[in-house]
C-alpha cells in the first residue's frame, strides 16, 4: 500500500513534514491523488512515501513520518531526518495543527535553521475554530517571511491556495537567537561543518544545532562526509557540553519553545469558554479510571458480535455452506470431472487437497468474509481515535512487562496484520521496547484472518470457549512479556503521550482503508493458500502426509489431545498461522470443546507467517528472528499441552 520509498537524489523533491497526526498523509493524498494509510493516531506513517504531485508531475512529493521533535530520537523520526539529509530537497511544506500553534512553531523554529524554502499549512483549521482558536495567518506569514495557509485537508479546503503558495516558498526568518555562550558554540560548529562537510541544500547552522542536540542521522552523515574533520567537530561538541549543567539538547529545545510561545501569543487568540468539546468528553470517558474498562469490554463485545457472529457465522454460513458447498463446488467438481480426464489433475483441482476445493474455498468462503468484517470494524476504531486512548488504560498492565502503554498501538495494529505492525514498532522509543514488542506480537498476537477463524470456530461452540482462548492468550502475553522484560537489558521509559481527539469516523476513509487491506489480502494471502494447498497435495500423494500424521501422534494426540489429522493443520501453519487455523476449522465437526480451544491456542502461538518472519529479519536481523522462532514453537506446544491437561481437570 505504500508507494515507493526508494530515495532518489535526482528528482526535484518537496516534502510534507510536521508533528504526528496533523494530517500530512491526508494532504499527501490531496496533492498527489495517491492514497496512503490515514488514521487518527500518531505513528500511522513510519516510512517515507513518495508520489508525483498533481501540480508538477516531474517533481516528487514525500510524505514523511511525523516528528515529535528534532533532533530525531525514534526510528520514524530518523527516517524523516534521513530524507531531509539525502534528498534533493527544494521545498518543505510544514503541516501544523492550527489549534496548537505554539507546538507547530516550535518545529518551525528548528526547520527555519535548515534554510530550506518553506510553506506552512495550518491544518485542522475547523477544529481550531470549534475550540475558539483564531490565528492571524497574514501576521504569522509576515513574521516568518513565508506563506502561511489555513487548510482543512479532510475536506480539501485550502489545498489550491497551498499549491499556489509553493511558488512563493522562502527560507523562514530565524525565530530566535540563543544565549551568547550557546551561540558561540553553534557558530563554531557551523564554521567547521561549512569547512569540512558543506551540505548542498541544508544550512550548516541547522546541522550544527542538530549535531549539538546529538541527532544520530546528522552524526552518521557527518562521519560519511567530513572525513578527518568529523573528529574535530565531535571534540568541539564534547568540549561544549562538558562544562554545562543542563544538557545542550534540552537547552536548545527550551529556547526554541520560548521563541515559539512568544510568536504564537502575538498572532493567535483564544475565545473564552470554548476549550471543552463533546469529542473531548467522549475521549475522557474512554480513559476514565472506572468507565474506561466497561467501555473497552463493550467495544470488544460489539467487535466480537460483528466479526465473530455476523462475519464468521452468518456470512461464512451463506458463502461456505450455501454458495460454495451447495452450488459452486459441486458444479466445479462436475465440470472438472467431466472435462479433465487425467485423474491426478482433477484431484489437484477439486480433490481433498484441491486448489479450488481447499485453497480457494478456504481463502474466499471462509476467510474473506471474516477479514472484511474485521477490517471494517478496525477502520472505524482507528478513525475514531480510540486506539490511542487504550495506551492510557493498558499502561499499568504493560508496566508489569517492562513496557509502557505506547506498545499497545503496534499490538492492536497486529490484530490487523502482524507484518505491518512489526514496522509500526518504530514509533517506540528504545530498541528494548521494540524487541520485546516484536517478540510478543510474533508469539501471541493473532492477525485478522486468524482471529476471525478463532471467533468462527470457538464462537460457534460457546462464548466461554472464546473467553478461555482470550484469557489464555493474555496470560501467555503477560508471562512471556514479564520474562522478556527481565531478560532484555535496559530500563523502562515512563509513558508520556498525546491523546488525539476522538472523531466521528469518515465512511469514505474507512471504506478506502478496508478496500486497500482487502486488496493486500487477495494479493498476498491467496497465493500462499494455493502454495500451501499444493504442498499438502504433494505430501499426500507422496505418502508423506500420512507419515507426518503418524509421527506427530505422540505430540498432537498424546500431549495436545487432538485428533491425529490435526497434524496436517500444523504443517499448513508453517506457511501461515491462519491457514493452519483454517485447517482446524475444517475439522470442527470432529472436535470437542476442549480440543477446539487447545487447537486454537496452539496454532495461535505457532510460528508467525513467512511475511512476518521476513519483516522481523529486516527490522531486527537474522539472529534475533532465529532466536524468536526457536522460543516460539516449543512454547506453543508446551502451552497447548498444559492447557489440555488443565482443562481436563475441570471439564
Amino acid at each position, binding site marked *: 500500500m505504500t508507494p515507493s520509498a526508494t530515495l532518489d537524489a535526482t528528482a526535484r523533491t518537496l516534502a510534507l513534514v510536521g508533528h504526528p497526526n496533523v494530517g500530512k498523509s491526508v494532504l499527501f493524498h490531496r496533492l498527489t491523488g495517491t492514497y496512503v494509510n490515514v488514521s487518527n493516531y500518531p505513528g500511522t506513517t513510519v516510512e517515507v512515501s513518495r508520489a508525483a504531485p498533481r501540480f508538477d508531475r516531474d517533481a516528487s512529493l514525500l510524505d514523511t513520518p511525523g516528528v515529535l*521533535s528534532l533532533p530525531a530520537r525514534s526510528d520514524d523520526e530518523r527516517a524523516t531526518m534521513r530524507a531531509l539529509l539525502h534528498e534533493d530537497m527544494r521545498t518543505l511544506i510544514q503541516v501544523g495543527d492550527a489549534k496548537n500553534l505554539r507546538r507547530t512553531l516550535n518545529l518551525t523554529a528548528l526547520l527555519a535553521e535548515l534554510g530550506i524554502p518553506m510553506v506552512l499549512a495550518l491544518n485542522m483549521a475547523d477544529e481550531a475554530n470549534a475550540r475558539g482558536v483564531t490565528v492571524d495567518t497574514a501576521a504569522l506569514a509576515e513574521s516568518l517571511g513565508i506563506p502561511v495557509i489555513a487548510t482543512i485537508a479532510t475536506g480539501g479546503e485550502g489545498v489550491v491556495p497551498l499549491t499556489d503558495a509553493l511558488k512563493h516558498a522562502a527560507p523562514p526568518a530565524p525565530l530566535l537567537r540563543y544565549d551568547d555562550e550557546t551561540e558561540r558554540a553553534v557558530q563554531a560548529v557551523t564554521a567547521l561543518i561549512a569547512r569540512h562537510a558543506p551540505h548542498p541544500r541544508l544550512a550548516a547552522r541547522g546541522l550544527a544545532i542538530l549535531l549539538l542536540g546529538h541527532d544520530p542521522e546528522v552524526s552518521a552523515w557527518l562521519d560519511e562526509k567530513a572525513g578527518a574533520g568529523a573528529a574535530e567537530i565531535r571534540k568541539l561538541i564534547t568540549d561544549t557540553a562538558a562544562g554545562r549543567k543542563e544538557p545542550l539538547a534540552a537547552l536548545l529545545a527550551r529556547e526554541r519553545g520560548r521563541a515559539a510561545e512568544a510568536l504564537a501569543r502575538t498572532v493567535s487568540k483564544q475565545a473564552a469558554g470554548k476549550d471543552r468539546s463533546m469529542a473531548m468528553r467522549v*475521549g475522557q470517558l474512554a480513559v476514565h479510571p472506572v468507565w474506561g474498562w466497561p467501555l473497552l469490554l463493550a467495544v470488544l463485545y460489539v467487535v466480537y458480535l460483528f466479526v465473530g457472529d455476523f462475519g464468521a457465522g452468518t456470512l461464512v454460513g451463506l458463502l461456505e455452506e450455501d454458495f460454495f458447498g451447495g452450488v459452486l463446488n459441486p458444479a466445479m467438481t462436475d465440470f472438472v470431472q467431466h472435462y479433465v480426464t487425467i485423474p491426478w489433475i482433477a484431484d489437484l483441482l477439486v480433490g481433498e487437497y484441491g486448489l479450488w476445493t481447499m485453497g480457494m474455498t478456504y481463502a474466499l468462503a471462509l476467510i474473506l468474509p471474516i477479514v472484511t468484517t474485521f477490517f471494517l470494524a478496525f477502520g472505524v476504531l482507528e478513525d475514531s481515535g480510540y486506539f490511542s486512548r487504550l495506551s492510557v488504560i493498558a499502561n499499568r498492565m504493560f508496566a508489569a512487562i517492562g513496557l509502557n502503554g505506547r506498545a499497545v498501538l503496534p499490538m492492536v495494529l497486529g490484530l490487523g496484520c502482524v507484518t505491518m505492525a512489526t514496522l509500526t514498532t518504530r514509533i517506540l522509543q528504545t530498541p528494548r521496547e521494540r524487541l520485546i514488542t516484536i517478540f510478543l506480537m510474533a508469539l501471541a498476537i493473532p492477525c485478522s484472518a486468524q482471529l476471525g477463524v478463532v471467533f468462527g470456530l470457538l464462537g460457534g461452540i460457546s462464548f466461554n470457549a472464546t473467553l478461555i482462548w482470550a484469557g489464555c492468550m493474555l496470560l501467555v502475553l503477560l508471562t512471556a512479556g514479564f520474562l522478556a522484560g527481565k531478560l532484555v537489558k535496559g530500563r523502562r521509559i515512563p509513558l508520556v503521550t498525546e491523546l488525539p481527539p476522538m472523531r466521528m469516523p469518515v465512511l469514505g476513509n474507512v471504506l478506502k482503508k478496508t478496500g486497500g487491506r482487502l486488496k493486500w489480502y487477495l494479493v498476498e494471502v491467496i497465493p500462499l493458500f494455493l502454495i500451501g494447498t499444493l504442498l499438502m497435495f504433494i505430501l499426500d500423494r507422496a505418502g508423506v502426509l500420512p507419515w507426518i500424521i503418524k509421527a506427530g501422534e505422540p505430540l498432537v494426540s498424546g500431549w495436545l489431545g487432538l485428533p491425529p489429522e490435526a497434524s496436517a493443520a500444523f504443517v499448513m501453519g508453517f506457511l501461515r498461522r491462519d491457514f493452519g487455523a483454517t485447517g482446524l476449522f475444517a475439522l470442527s465437526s470432529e472436535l470437542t470443546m476442549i480440543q477446539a480451544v487447545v487447537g486454537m491456542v496452539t496454532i495461535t502461538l505457532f510460528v508467525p507467517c513467512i511475511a512476518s518472519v521476513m519483516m522481523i529479519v529486516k527490522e531486527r536481523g537474522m539472529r534475533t528472528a532465529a532466536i524468536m522462532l526457536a522460543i516460539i514453537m516449543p512454547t506453543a506446544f508446551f502451552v497447548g499441552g498444559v492447557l489440555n491437561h488443565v482443562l481436563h481437570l475441570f471439564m
Partner: protein
Amino acid sequence: MSQQERIRLLGTPVGREVRLAEFGDDIDPLQREQLHAYGLSVPHKLKVLQQHPLTVVLCDHVEIAIEHAVAQHLWVESAA
C-alpha cells in the same frame, strides 16, 4: 495556593488550571526533551483533566497523558 507555592502536578486537583513551574532533577534529559516537544514548558498553562490511571492534562487544546513517575517530578503553581 499562593503565587509562590509549588506543588507536584501529580498532587494537583482535577479541574485546576496551573502553570508549569519547574522540571524536577529526576526527569531524564530525553524525557525532558519529549515534554518540551509536547508543549510542556515553563511557565505554560495547563489544565488537569484527570489523575487516574494516569495524569492527563490539557495543553493548548491537546490532551497529554503523563505517567505518575513523570508527573510527580513536574512542579506547578497557580495559574492565577
